[in-house]
């Protein structure tokens, strides 16, 4: 993209836009000090003034950015100690880069030269919006992680933690999780329930999807709707229904009761993902296999299964996570002997707000990320092997 020539932009444009970024940062800092509006105003004025000075009075990019970086760090330190310094340095680095990115017109470098000002605006407005959504989605999860290393027994950022003092941090909540019988029991319950429920969901769900994809099956749509209903019906209703039904069968409060209930919740996910992969499955392949003497079972395992495997795996993953995260149904169908991790977290949150819950949450988030990454990598590998993607 060497065609695009970047040229310096007027200060009257760069300074207010940089000011807006500063205003957002000021809003966050101001909210922390119980005065969001003042923070907003100060952030805007300071950053706009800074942009004006660097672009209009002293335009030496390297020096200016270093000065901004160090000054913001010092300011942060004076305001809020070590943590403030860290945030200040980050802010200084970002805003220094941002001012010159705007002022030198570098933001146009990667866009085609014929884009109008309006298109450039939409291009970046879209990215800013996505960034904000991402920020608000991810922050609550990220905030939990440092809190789980709290040395206190409350969900509180203590002054020691904010000073980055090692005394404010501890692994005691992780230790509590691994030594406390209640948590260990809950973990083993979750680990023994989720995989079995997943296997049942995958088995039944895959078979149902294959059967329902055959056009000769009568009442396909009705059957499909019924099988998918656990996903649509509010969970509390399924849970209450299962409670009374399982009680009469003597399954309420048993291991298999919870496994069956979770399998029922997981089946819709498997059906939907497998049905989706079956759309791309060429039925003549099964006929070809039959023509070569393979019986239906062999055909299924040797021909059909490998081709729809990505759908089966992702359905199974969803079923697993459904069972692993589920709290409503297990509260009804399970008894104290089947207390799963989410159940333990639920009662823990209500009865004693202990950061052990945060330690568990942190570990669960990490496990989920690893699980999804593994599956995604496996999927890409299989696509590459089958030549579906150029990877």
């Amino acid at each position, binding site marked *: 993209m060497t065609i695009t020539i970047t040229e310096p932009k007027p200060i009257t444009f760069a300074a207010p836009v940089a000011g807006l970024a500063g205003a957002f940062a000021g809003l966050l800092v101001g909210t922390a000090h119980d005065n969001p509006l003042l923070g907003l105003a100060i952030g805007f004025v300071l950053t706009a003034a800074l942009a004006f000075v660097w672009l209009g009075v002293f335009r030496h990019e390297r020096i200016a950015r270093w000065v901004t970086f160090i000054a913001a760090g010092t300011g942060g330190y004076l305001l809020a100690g070590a943590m403030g310094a860290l945030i200040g340095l980050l802010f200084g680095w970002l805003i220094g880069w941002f001012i010159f990115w705007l002022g030198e017109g570098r933001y146009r470098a990667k866009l085609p030269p014929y884009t109008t000002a309006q298109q450039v605006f939409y291009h970046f407005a879209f990215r800013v919006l996505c960034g904000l959504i991402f920020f608000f989605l991810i922050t609550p999860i990220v905030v939990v992680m440092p809190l789980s290393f709290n040395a*206190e*027994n*409350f*969900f*509180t950022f203590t002054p020691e933690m904010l000073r980055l003092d090692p005394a404010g941090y501890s692994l005691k909540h992780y230790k509590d999780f691994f030594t406390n019988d209640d948590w260990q029991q809950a973990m083993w319950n979750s680990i*023994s329930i989720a*995989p*079995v429920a997943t296997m049942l969901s995958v088995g039944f769900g895959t078979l149902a999807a294959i059967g329902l994809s055959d056009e000769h099956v009568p009442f396909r749509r009705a059957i499909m709707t019924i099988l998918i209903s656990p996903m649509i019906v509010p969970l509390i209703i399924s849970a*209450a229904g299962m*409670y*009374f039904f399982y*009680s*009469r069968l*003597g399954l*309420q*409060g048993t*291991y*298999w009761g919870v496994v069956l209930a979770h399998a029922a919740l997981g089946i819709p996910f498997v059906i939907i993902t497998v049905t989706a992969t079956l759309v791309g499955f060429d039925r003549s392949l099964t006929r070809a296999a039959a023509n070569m003497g393979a019986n239906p079972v062999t055909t299924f395992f040797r021909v059909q299964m490998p081709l729809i495997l990505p759908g089966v795996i992702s359905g199974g993953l969803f079923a697993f996570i459904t069972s692993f995260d589920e709290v409503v149904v297990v509260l009804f169908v399970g*008894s*104290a*002997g089947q207390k799963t991790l989410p159940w333990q977290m639920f*009662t*823990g*949150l*209500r*009865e*004693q*707000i202990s950061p052990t819950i945060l330690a568990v949450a942190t570990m669960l988030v990490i496990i989920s990320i690893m699980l999804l990454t593994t599956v995604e990598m496996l999927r890409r590998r299989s696509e590459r092997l089958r030549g579906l993607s150029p990877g």
Partner: protein
Amino acid sequence: MKLTTTLLATTALTVAAVSAHAQDMANSLTLVSWGGAYQNSQQKAYVEPYLANNPDVTITWDESSAEAVAKLRAMDEAGNVTWDLVDVVASDAMRLCDEGLAMELDHDEMLAAAPDGTSASDDFGDLIVSDCFVPQIVYSTTFGYRTDMVPEGTEPPSSVCDVFDLETYPGKRALQKRPIDNMEWALYCDGVEKGDIYDVLGTDEGVDRALAKLDTIKDQVVWWSAGAETPQLLADGEVFMGSTFNGRLFSAIAEQDQPIAMMWDMQSFDLDGWIVPAGLPEDRLARVMDFLSFATDTQRLADQAAYISYGPARASSAPLVGQHAELGIDMAPHMPTDPANATNVHIYDYEWWADNRDDLDAKFQSWLAN
């Protein structure tokens, strides 16, 4: 492999159940309680000694006391009561008793007498508020405040009416999201004599008056529903003062070293205790009765006070209350029933609330929503 383990476990359970039948006593007990420090005190004071005497027994905890009434109704309807002994507050015990979901007990026959021979019903005295209820502890709902948030040059708050005084004590307050206690405190601080509170509250004008008083602090109130919330809010500095169960405040102050102080004025006494679900099979009932009699004897109730600052329900336990099991501090001064703490208490009227609860709940909720 899982299947094998489960099958083995099931077989083991069946064998256990058969051998238990021989002694006419089931060998497993499901106890329902509140979780947290309170359940821990029960575990330490009753369950561990009981298991030491009866090594064959297994005890499972279910932290469902908060929904005990709803769950017992559902279990009853489904004909499948899986709980053996349920820890509930006195008002829930009365409701369950009225609905026939809890078993009526003969306290003298079922429970141990005091060491000096006083019968159980005399030892518990007035605290037996229902025929189905075996009281364990007296607790109170009272206020705690952040000592470092008291405005400079001001006396720390000492009266419940300081909660309604936003000028002297500015800051957020945590109150329980229910009319009980809040309405009484509001009327008391609006100048109603303690003895007249329930008479005034019985009229529509009285309800409006209480809500109007609460209106004066409404925008500064954080409403809580679980006992752990106020200590968290106080520890965080989110609120200046807040009501919660006195044991929770004790734990935040003495065990967690938070800058919080107690305000015992107009503390509201309440009771917590066991009920036995109605219709248990005979072998399970026999085990429950054996445990219940052990767990509510004079020594066990006194032992419990070493783990949590709630007053034992038996008069004969009070002199035996000793020191905190870990901190070694004397527990008596931290009991809600200690004379120094109980100079001005609010006696919560069970019967009045049983009659008026639904009505006031509705009014309170619609007030909250406005």
